[in-house]
């Protein structure tokens, strides 16, 4: 036994190191969130939320940015959810593990790993230039839908797999058709998981700036239709911060963005938990 540190002491030391690593991770989050909220919350008031920016954002509010964010996020989720869930249902229920499924998986996996700035380039080349759509929230929403698609697809697949086969057998044995079974039995049981996936995609769309940098334009005015250009919150924050326009308003915008994401995550987690409990009769 010519060890420098005995196994028992090594155990004690490592336990301390592991605890420290967990605590450090928590502290990192607290510092970042804390800093943004402490600096940003005092800036937020009704005026800030409900008014248009003045003097390219030096003063005034961020109402058009909030509206732009809501519009592109809504478009992204509205487009990506049916496609993602549909593809997941097809893969899990209508086909076996074959070359087609492998291709679809490969496609979605690659889609998930493409850097957002490449999505941005694609949006510019395809929507803005090739389709002559110009800068618009609509194009931005579609680009974000493409980005959110793999998340929604993968999570939906996992949730559908998790539904016990006996549920489907029960319905089929009663003479239910395949689609009836999927629609009335499998999907409802998979809803909590799918919702989580949709929210993840939604949060991702809401926080994205690079992918829409060249697609939505940078208009400060309130968008009147989904085909208008706009400037969603992350983009606004980016411009305010890098062009040194207004630090205060940048703090405020960052805080609004962080709060939005936090609220959405917490609310869905709670709702999904309730729903699953209700379904399982607990």
């Amino acid at each position, binding site marked *: 036994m010519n060890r420098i540190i005995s196994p028992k002491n090594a155990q004690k030391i490592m336990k301390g190191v592991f605890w420290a690593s967990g605590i450090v991770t*928590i502290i990192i989050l607290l510092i970042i969130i804390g800093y943004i909220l402490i600096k940003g919350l005092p800036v937020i008031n009704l005026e800030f939320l409900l008014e248009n920016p003045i003097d390219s954002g030096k003063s005034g509010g961020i109402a058009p940015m909030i509206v732009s964010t809501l519009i592109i996020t809504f478009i992204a989720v509205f487009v990506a959810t049916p496609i993602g869930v549909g593809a997941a249902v097809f893969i899990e229920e209508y086909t076996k593990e074959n070359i087609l499924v492998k291709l679809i998986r490969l496609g979605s996996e690659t889609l998930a790993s493409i850097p957002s700035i490449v999505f941005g380039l694609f949006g510019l080349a395809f929507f803005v230039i090739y389709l002559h759509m110009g800068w618009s929230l609509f194009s931005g929403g579609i680009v974000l839908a493409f980005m959110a698609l793999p998340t929604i697809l993968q999570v939906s697949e996992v949730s559908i797999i998790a539904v016990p086969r006996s549920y489907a057998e029960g319905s089929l044995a009663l003479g239910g058709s395949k689609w009836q079974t999927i629609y009335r039995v499998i999907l409802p049981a998979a809803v909590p998981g799918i919702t989580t996936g949709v929210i993840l995609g939604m949060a991702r769309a809401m926080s994205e700036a690079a992918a829409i940098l060249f697609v939505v334009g940078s208009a400060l005015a309130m968008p009147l239709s989904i085909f208008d250009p706009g400037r969603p919150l992350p983009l606004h924050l980016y411009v305010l911060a890098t062009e040194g326009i207004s630090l205060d308003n940048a703090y405020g915008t960052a805080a609004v963005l962080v709060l939005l994401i936090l609220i959405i995550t917490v609310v869905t987690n709670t709702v999904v938990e309730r729903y699953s409990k209700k379904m399982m009769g607990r």
Partner: protein
Amino acid sequence: MKDIGEFLIEKGLLITAFLSIIIILLIIIFIFSEGLPFMESYGFLKFIFGSIWDPSSGDYGVLPMIVGSLGITSLALVFAIPLSLLCAIYMAEIAPKTMRKILKPVIETLAGIPSVVYGFFGLIVLVPIMRIHFGGTGFSMFTASIILTVMILPTIISVSEDALRFIPHEYKEASLALGATHWQTIKNVIFPAAIPGIITAIILGMGRAIGETLAVIMVAGNVAQFPTTISDPVRALTSNIAIEMGYATGIHYSALFGTAIVLFIIIIILLVVANYFHYKKKITIGGGYL
């Protein structure tokens, strides 16, 4: 006898399933059709190994940006791997229930914070600190790598934690029953068995770091030159596109699509490597290769 409705639904679902393939193909076509002709006429090697990027005099060498991207990413991995693996092991093996309940949402939130907010935090808090302690402007490869470290922590932690949890409980029992300490069991049995999953986790983190754009732009300084120390400013591939696309035209415009192709190829290489390890992980479950 199949109902017509059932038939239509099946075909509709087939189309949705095909869409992700179509979208990825569209992206590849549009990026490559713009970037490849440029790379060909400018010269592939000259483009990839050229060390000067100066659109105003017609120089489009992308190597400084490749070095920049890889430099920031490697540095971020150096910081992130130890912390995130320790944290993953902590969550999978050591943390009591209450700590796990706290850490899970903490990591989800870290993953959910928009990258622009990270960049903003870096710009406002980290850059001045760096300026004071390390001199220079504070915008540097080092600063960017710290921001990226925080951004890839949640990815590496959550995927490795999964991999660690996946290790059969029997291994742990067998080791403890032989009189091993918990740490010996983690070091000699649990961790080695989880390595394929952990490598996948690291590669995913690497992919996120290489693909990150705006957070890097905000703190890296963005000078298209080779860095000599880690406190030099650097420009990443992603930043190169984001900074210049706003005003690029003609060849310059195409050269940025060429930059995107380089980025794309790096990501594909990472994907292939990740899949290779993922594959091995599957055999481990069935037959055991270790």
